[in-house]
């Protein structure tokens, strides 16, 4: 088990510790299980949304306050695609429903990626290396995007119902586990595994990491780091689009302001994670998801504050987040 010595394992314990702490407070075992699975699923969706942002920050050192825009965009594209495939989503057959959700995801990712490309070119490129201006200008970019969404889809809330077969829950003992949450966990794990694999085990990942360490050296070997980094930004945006579809289906409705609302949540997650670490973001997202579900059950009014309290507690323990990115 050599690789366990390389990584810091203590943060990994946070998730089970939080879940175990909540058990006696909630009391009933089946309720606890339902809440825990729900929290993990919510955490996975949040992770999908946050992973793009943490990737862009960790690798490119770009602080994108407009990330929520791609999430909202993904969700709105999904309403259009799923709305157009009404007889597929309403059929109630598992495979036809999946065949409706898949293109929605693919189209949402493609649109978010395309907009991400334009966003990188026109909003982010002039301000590389200047954090203050990045915050300002990406914020402006998000306002423009949000207003354009209002122009295209209207300023009101749109319903995004789950396809027939994904509604309802599976019973496991006394605990009811919603089917959609299981799907969310599966998608989230797939995204996490793919990211770890690409960054850790492929040549592209090697080049990206090397480019972060010593850009000039990699360029002098003949690789175009610039293009690679644009690619990272586009992939980050596409992941946000995917996360937007998942989040929209989870909430079952979408509003143009959702980008700004979600931003708050994912910022908390990537701060907990250490700004730039994929593993940290996963831990942060799971913690936030669990916390939101436990406090939503125990004390609904303080749900939003629980996230901030969680962040404060973790920053008191590790002021740089659970997995600080070492080279900055």
């Amino acid at each position, binding site marked *: 088990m050599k690789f366990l010595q390389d990584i810091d394992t203590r943060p990994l314990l946070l998730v089970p510790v939080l879940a175990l702490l909540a058990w006696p407070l909630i009391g009933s075992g089946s309720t606890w299980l339902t809440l825990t699975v729900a929290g993990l699923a919510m955490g996975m969706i949040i992770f999908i949304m946050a992973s793009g942002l943490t990737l862009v920050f960790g690798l490119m050192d770009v*602080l994108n*306050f407009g990330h929520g825009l791609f999430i909202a965009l993904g969700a709105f594209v999904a309403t259009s695609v799923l709305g157009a495939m009404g007889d597929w989503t309403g059929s109630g057959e598992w495979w036809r429903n999946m065949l409706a959700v898949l293109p929605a995801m693919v189209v949402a990712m493609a649109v978010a990626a395309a907009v991400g490309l334009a966003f990188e070119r026109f*909003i982010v490129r*002039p*301000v590389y290396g200047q*954090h*203050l*201006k990045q*915050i*300002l*200008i990406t*914020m*402006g*970019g*998000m*306002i*423009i995007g*949000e*207003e*354009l969404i*209002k*122009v295209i889809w209207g*300023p009101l809330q749109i319903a995004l119902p789950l396809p027939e077969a994904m509604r309802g829950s599976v019973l496991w003992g006394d605990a009811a586990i919603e089917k959609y949450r299981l799907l969310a966990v599966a998608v989230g794990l797939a995204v996490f595994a793919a990211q770890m694999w690409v960054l850790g085990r492929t040549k592209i990942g090697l080049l990206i990491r090397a480019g972060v360490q010593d850009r000039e050296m990699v360029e002098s070997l003949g690789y175009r780091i610039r293009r690679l980094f644009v690619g990272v930004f586009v992939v980050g945006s596409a992941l946000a689009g995917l996360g937007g579809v998942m989040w929209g289906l989870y909430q079952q409705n979408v509003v143009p302001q959702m980008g*700004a*609302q979600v*931003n*708050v949540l994912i*910022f*908390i997650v*990537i*701060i907990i994670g250490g*700004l730039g670490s994929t593993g940290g973001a996963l831990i942060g997202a799971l913690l936030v998801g669990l916390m939101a579900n436990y406090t939503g059950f125990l004390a609904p*009014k303080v749900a*939003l*504050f629980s*996230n*901030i309290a969680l*962040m*404060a507690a973790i*920053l008191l323990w590790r*002021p*740089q987040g659970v997995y600080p990115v070492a080279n900055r």
Partner: protein
Amino acid sequence: MFNRLISNDLPRSRLLAAVLLMILLGLAFAPFLFPGVKALSVAAKVLIFVVLVVGFDLLLGYTGIVSFAHTMFFGIGAYGIAIASNTWGPTWGSIGLGFVLSMGLTLVFSLAIGLFSLRVRAIFFAMITLAVAAAFQTLASQLSDFTGGEDGLSFKLPELLSPSTEFSDEPFFGVSLDGRLLSYYLLFVLALGMLLAMLRIVNSPFGRVLQAIRENEFRAEAIGYRVVVYRTLSSVLSALFACVAGAMLAVWLRYNGPDTSLSFEIMMDVLLIVVIGGMGTVYGAAIGSVLFLLAQSYLQDLLRLASESAAAWPLLSALLSPDRWLLWLGVLFVLSVYYFPTGVVGRLRARTALKRSAPKSGLEESV
């Protein structure tokens, strides 16, 4: 004497000085120069925003910290007056007590946020304040027994400030001398005082340290300044300015609700004003506020006209609809960060400096 009043921070550009003088005179005689209810409320909003923005600029422009919690303190100030007047009745005492309590709360909150988050990575601060501000807004709309929830609070002010109080039967130069006029001048004096106080702060040794931290944190620490202490002080001062601005808003509107003082759009407005006016210049806050509020109040009418005349092209018409005001704000924002990074004041000063071909001071240029 005059130099001491503005703390030796001269406009350093003849055009800038002329514009500032015009703004000062315009605001001082606004009730007489621009008749009508709308014009007066635009002028009053300018006064309120000058105080709010100048406080924010202390953080953003002088210390180089981005905070999104500034409207939270604005809201605390406004709710302080609103809740106190509602609970203890429309007396000067309750206004005073409400003001003191909200200043106290602001002090405690900003100190807590500052001490806690300024010791972590600087970039975290923007995100943490964003989260805290969002949480506070939710809190304000949920505690409906106390804050009136989404509907907000309407309240009465002492007799002297209420619009029905007439001081004289005869109008003075065509303006009736009523409580509204008195409120306006109360705001004017407050805003002018706060602006001069801010000039004093940024041109003091303390202000110089803040600028040193902005330019190079590492060196400032190496010289021996405790960066965390200065940053925290700067964020506390900035929050207190916002709290005063909030109180001014409540006194003027005699109403407060989450959308009036806490909404994220106000935060965006403040950011935009600072960028347009020029970061790190107190005068920029004044010029930016005037430009922005004039645009906000009157361009919406223009957009309505444009949208109606473009009715033949639905997409263009939708883009120009007055509801899409924020879209054009965003475009303006991005373009000004792009092409106009030093703002109006920075541009005007740079022009003068170029004309004199004197060596540039460098500070404004590098913001």
